[in-house]
């Protein structure tokens, strides 16, 4: 479905992506993880064509994307920080995007709009919304057009537990429809029930891309957080979270 082929990107001094090669196919839920500034968002933006790579190519359905835009019709994107025009109302936003995508009402998937109760805020301007509510709007927009590929950048950050659960349930149901879903998150426990593959990035380099089963077998850990921490210890990678540091310390004391 999506193939990333030797992508390299440099922002002045920062090497954001360093020769990343990976391949994602339908029915997979890929968790992109890594420390802050490891290039996760840059990789996503490159796939979306918002950032132009210095070298390398990205293939969507076998076709290279090169300043092309039609392929984005098949992608639903939920950004890390949804930024919208201040004066636009929520309802207007939905209507406008529907117009751009030129889809009929029968193809619309408004499950999230209903479940997150977004109709109630249709006539509120975007600038009055809290961060969490914006996230809800972003989530509903990403899923609205029933796209084949969903790219979710930190989807649960800032969402209340209830909405977060609704979103997770939605991701699982989309996964069962054989869609490709890319998620970045720092909340590894959120990913436990969703993910099928883990992709680990650090300093712009891809450390590994493995499916969950292999990872669990290799490390003997059931939970993603612990499995990752163990791998990081083996390969001397930097920890992502405080808990990882604790796990690493605990391991050291055992020996």
């Amino acid at each position, binding site marked *: 479905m999506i193939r990333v082929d030797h992508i390299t990107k440099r922002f002045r001094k920062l090497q954001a992506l360093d020769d990343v090669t990976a391949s994602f196919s339908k029915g997979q839920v890929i968790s992109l993880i890594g420390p802050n500034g490891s290039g996760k968002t840059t990789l996503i933006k490159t796939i979306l064509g918002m950032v*132009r790579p210095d070298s390398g190519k990205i293939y969507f359905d076998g076709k290279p994307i090169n300043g092309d835009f039609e392929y984005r019709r098949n*992608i639903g994107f939920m*950004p890390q920080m949804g*930024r*919208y025009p201040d004066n636009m109302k929520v309802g207007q936003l939905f209507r406008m995007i529907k117009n751009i995508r030129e889809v009929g009402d029968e193809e619309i998937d408004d499950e999230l709009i209903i479940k997150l109760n977004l109709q109630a805020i249709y006539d509120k301007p975007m600038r009055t919304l809290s961060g969490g509510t914006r996230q809800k709007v972003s989530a509903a927009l990403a899923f609205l057009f029933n796209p084949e590929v969903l790219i979710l950048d930190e989807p649960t950050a800032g969402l209340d537990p209830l909405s977060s659960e609704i979103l997770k349930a939605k991701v699982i149901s989309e996964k069962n429809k054989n869609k490709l879903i890319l998620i970045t998150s720092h909340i590894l426990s959120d990913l436990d029930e969703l993910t099928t593959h883990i992709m680990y990035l650090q300093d712009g380099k891809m450390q590994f891309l493995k499916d969950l089963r292999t990872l669990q077998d290799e490390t003997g850990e059931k939970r993603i957080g612990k499995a990752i921490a163990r791998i990081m210890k083996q390969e001397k990678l930097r920890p992502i979270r405080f808990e990882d540091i604790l796990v690493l310390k605990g391991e050291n004391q055992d020996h």
Partner: protein
Amino acid sequence: MAGYTLFLLIASMSLFNMEENSSKAMLSLLNIVLIIVPLISLIFSTIHYYNSYEFIELMLSQPMSRTKILLSEYGSVSFSLLFSFLIGVGVPVLIYSFDATGMAMLFTGSALTMIFSSIAFFASVKSRDKARGIGSVLLLWFYFALIYDGLILMILFTFSDYPLEKLTLLLSALNPIDLGRIFIMLKMDISALMGYTGALYKDFFGSGSGIMFTIGIMLLWALIPLWLTVRAFKRKDL
């Protein structure tokens, strides 16, 4: 935007009412058109670009081509500026001074609006930082409105022993404000004040080919920055 329209309208109405001679009023209006219109077009377009940055980002994650996004942004801001100009200056000119000079003035003002909003877009796409974008746009305005004339005068003084008429003609094409000024002045029958050069200008700009030349150069001034902007925007990381 409404304020800009109102300002132009009040300024041009009061000029026409205060001077009994409408050509005197046109002369004062000329300065407004040549100084204020570029300034407002530059600043307004720059602010508009930076304010709609979020919107551009949102559009980019949708199936839309970058060229289309940028051109619609440019179109929306430049056409509303143009509309303001045509209401604010166009209506009074049509009422009080409906002749060749008036038409030349309206054409120049409209062309300057399009030209300077396209230059503003170029500067804003090139610089990510808002303060830098507005700063560079102001510098450009100083250059076109003030510094360029000083440079030309300097050249003319230094080389006053040589026949420079053809050269000054060429130099004027390098600044849309100058080009517009000459274009309107020659329609005003005051070119006699400009001596031999004025006569040459009159010969050239009075003719049909001179008018075509002016229109063509103005068009180039709007299209080339716009083309460069689209090119830069296509390669930009957002």
